């Protein structure tokens, strides 16, 4: 985690079992381990009312860890985009009192929260835990394009090609950090690129 940060930067916690009958989990990659840790603290019948949406990512690990929890529903997605229609329908049909748990990369947490906010769920009621990659989802303030999985500072916009400073300033609505041209005043100044969001 970044040592010094700013107030718009999301703060993540540790998942813990919430009272209620219906629990929706959305996780990617190492986020599965946060769910497993929660399971160790949960009452016996907890996952009988749970729906897990899991995107394993490139390493394709951890799906068995989650299946072993015997959730009422288990869905394995190829990408967040492919899981989104299902997530939206689940949120739209949700009963009052649904508990939402997000775990994994910041990009996953941010996009799942964006869908939840659009469904009218208050962001403070959502449990989040960051696990795995620090890669960022970044919006270019100039062309508005989103670049996924940004690991470097600065980073090149995948849409307009400007070299961007990846700020800590974060928008929940866009589920993205802000990228601002780092050498706007003198384009010949090219600062070194470092891999800082691994």
């Amino acid at each position: 985690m970044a040592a010094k940060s700013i107030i718009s930067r999301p703060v993540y916690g540790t998942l813990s079992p919430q009272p209620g009958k219906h629990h929706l989990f959305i996780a990617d990659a190492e986020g599965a381990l946060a769910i497993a840790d929660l399971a160790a603290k949960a009452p016996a019948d907890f996952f009988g009312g749970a729906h897990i949406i899991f995107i394993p990512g490139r390493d394709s690990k951890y799906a068995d860890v989650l299946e072993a929890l015997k959730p009422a529903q288990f869905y394995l997605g190829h990408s967040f985009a492919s899981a989104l229609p299902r997530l939206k329908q689940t949120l739209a049909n949700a009963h009052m009192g649904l508990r939402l748990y997000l775990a994994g990369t910041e990009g996953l947490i941010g996009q799942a929260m964006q869908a939840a906010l659009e469904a009218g769920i208050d962001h403070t009621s959502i449990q989040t835990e960051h696990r795995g990659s620090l890669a960022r989802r970044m919006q270019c303030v100039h062309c508005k394009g989103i670049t996924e999985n940004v690991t470097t500072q600065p980073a090149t916009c995948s849409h307009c090609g400007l070299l961007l400073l990846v700020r800590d300033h974060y928008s929940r609505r866009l589920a993205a950090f802000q990228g601002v041209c780092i050498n706007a005043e003198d384009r010949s100044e090219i600062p070194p690129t470092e891999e800082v969001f691994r």
Partner: protein
Amino acid sequence: MGITFRKETFRDDFTFRNSPEHIRRFPFPFHEDSYMYAVNIEPHVVGPKGSVLQNLIDVDEHYVAEMQDRALVLAEDPLRCQSLPHMTLAGWDLLELLMEQQALAYPEHFTLARDGDRWRWINRPLGIDDSFTFGDVSTLPYGPMEYITRQSQGDFCILDQRDGNLWMDAGMVTTQADWSLDFDIGMNFFEWHAPVPLAHEKGIFVRALKFLTNIQQGKPARRLNWTMTINPRLDTSPENYHKWGPDRATVTPENVGDKVHLRVELQSFWRLPRSNAIVFPIRCYLIKMDELVMQPKWARRLHRVIRDLPEELATYKGLTRYRATLVEWLSKLDDGSATSPGFGPD
């Protein structure tokens, strides 16, 4: 006698200038020879005749040119004006406020006639004469906020009040000092101020929020803020930073007086009657150094403020690249003599 509106530009050939009367009434923002953040909020009451506070919504000689510049910005980037779905009522509140204030203060330029919900708005400088039904969006060419803020100087943010916080849920922002409405819309007071250095640690925003959430209808408040801009450019948005940023590298000892501008924001805060939202107009005033230093007190004081500004603030305000050149130029106009207290010229 009405205002003589200047024909001028805020881009390309930059023909913006202040008349001698407008130089004298410029809202110089420093009441002493140094600057640090403070919760400098005071009641927004009518001030002296001939000042920018003579009317609570100020219309000046730049009105027509500013509205033309806004139209250009919006044609290029419609995302500068956004309103979340629950903010339409607040937009009507704002339309009422701005029509009332402008018609009251400048009857030779603006007329508002009301017959129940049937309103007629005449804006002579812009050649507009529209009849519409108050509260019915289908009777206006734009949503109510966009309609009236295309006819009102300054940026406008409408803040929804809930959960003890203020939420940036609507705005018309085309003359901003480097912040993005499109990115910040939907954020609360602390979140959209997150990038500001030093002020959080000083508790500025906690106190400011407490003040703002208690603002009552009919009792607006105001504060001044400032930065500097190279060339009289209104649209210093982050969206276009890669286009205007290079201007900052063009300042030389020879062109400081013409290129470097003090940019002052008169921010006011008004409770809106139907929506209980707060509208936050950010009225921008520009003055080039050659015009500003015609007041010797302002020249001396600005020299001392810029020279002694903490490094974080200078960086945040984007002065780094030309600060030394500016301070050197201003130092020649500072004989070291005392300045009188207060904002005004001697």
